[in-house]
């Protein structure tokens, strides 16, 4: 098969991969903050729930988590879900997995902020919520950005794991073409796509880091 046809066939898959990528970030970045809040809570049951959640998410394969989220509702509860659920399951699985990693990154960032910042904010009369969003979080974002970049780059590649529940994202499509054509070309094209996409991600993240470089 000629290359332009391969690329054309992969295009639909690329769009799905990008959708998975963007939706996962959209949900997991804020969810990670909530999990970090639970992990650092003064209320110990909440702290433990967050701890166990993070431990499971980080300690088991993402591929297995995809399978469990997709098939779990049927095998555990006998629920039959519409065909749309396949894509929703991917977003849920990626989101809850990445939120766990982001939570630990946020926690590290939050703990790195000097307690004097909280004290100065308290003396100036900021509420706890204002202190977090006006004083602490902007500093945390700067601290955690390099680690977040790492995770985001991993996520680009991890989207390919969705093939395990037959989501027609790029890797799934590339495998199908490669099998049908008995040629590795489609997989190589997919590889180039992931690579270029990650160059773009790294570029964007570096721009953001530079924008936050106005203070030490």
């Amino acid at each position, binding site marked *: 098969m000629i290359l332009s046809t391969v690329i054309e066939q992969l295009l639909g898959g690329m769009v799905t991969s990008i959708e998975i990528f963007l939706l996962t970030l959209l949900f997991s970045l804020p969810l990670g903050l909530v999990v970090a809040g639970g992990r650092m809570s003064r209320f110990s049951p909440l702290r433990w729930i967050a701890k166990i959640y993070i431990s499971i998410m980080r300690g088991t394969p993402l591929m297995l988590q995809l399978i469990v989220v997709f098939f779990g509702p049927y095998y555990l509860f006998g629920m039959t879900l519409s065909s749309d659920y396949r894509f929703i399951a991917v977003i849920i699985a990626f989101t809850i997995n990445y939120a766990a990693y982001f939570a630990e990154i946020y926690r590290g960032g939050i703990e790195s902020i*000097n307690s004097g910042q909280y*004290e100065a904010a308290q003396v100036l009369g900021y509420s706890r919520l204002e202190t977090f969003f006006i004083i602490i979080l902007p500093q945390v974002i700067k601290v955690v950005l390099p680690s977040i970049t790492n995770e985001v780059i991993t996520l680009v590649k991890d989207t390919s794991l969705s093939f395990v529940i037959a989501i027609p994202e790029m890797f799934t499509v590339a495998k199908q073409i490669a099998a049908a054509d008995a040629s590795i070309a489609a997989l190589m094209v997919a590889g180039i796509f992931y690579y270029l996409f990650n160059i773009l991600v790294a570029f964007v993240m570096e721009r953001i880091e530079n924008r936050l470089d106005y203070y030490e």
Partner: protein
Amino acid sequence: MSLLEVKNLKKSFNDNVVLKDISLNVEKGEVLAIIGPSGSGKSTLLRCITDLEQEDSGEINFDGTFGLVFQNFNLFPHHSVMKNITNAPIKVQKRDKTEVFNHARDLLKKMGLEDKEDAYPCELSGGQQQRVSIARALAMNPDILFFDEPTSALDPELTGEILEVIRELAAEHMTMVIVTHEMAFARNVADSIIFMDGGVIVVEGSPEEVFSSDNQRMKDFLGKFYD
């Protein structure tokens, strides 16, 4: 009635008794210096009064706003000098923006930093950062200003510029409580001095009274400075 009244204040950290029954009064316009060796409880006393620590027992009567100047400045590094000073008056006190900005510019001028309003804390020297933090505290229009060892994190050559600012504030009758290791400064600027050791007030009174006290602990402490 005094502006600030502290009665029978007690505070322990686990088994370590840091404040044993502290009482003091601060009058409007008074400058009180608190001196004493490290670990004597001076900073803990200030932190209890400013609500950064919760006392175990005792009473703190104070009705008004206060500012606190920290040893390590604790400026917000991601905010410009101007935003450091103006954000709380605007966001917390809900004051008019133009009025707050004018007030902040006046304060910066007074601190000799009128050209630094767009700078970030990391671009300033320690002495300049501490002057910004004093401006930040003053922008809240405090009834009383607390200083927790304001020159301890500064190089000796930068200490003078901060003491000069505090001296000017004293001349304007700003009510201040200053925890300090600068003995000569305390003696010159304060209206009254408290000498603390081991969590109690050992000597208190006017600078003349305190510095000429017969108390042995006071004499030992001062001896370390003059030897």
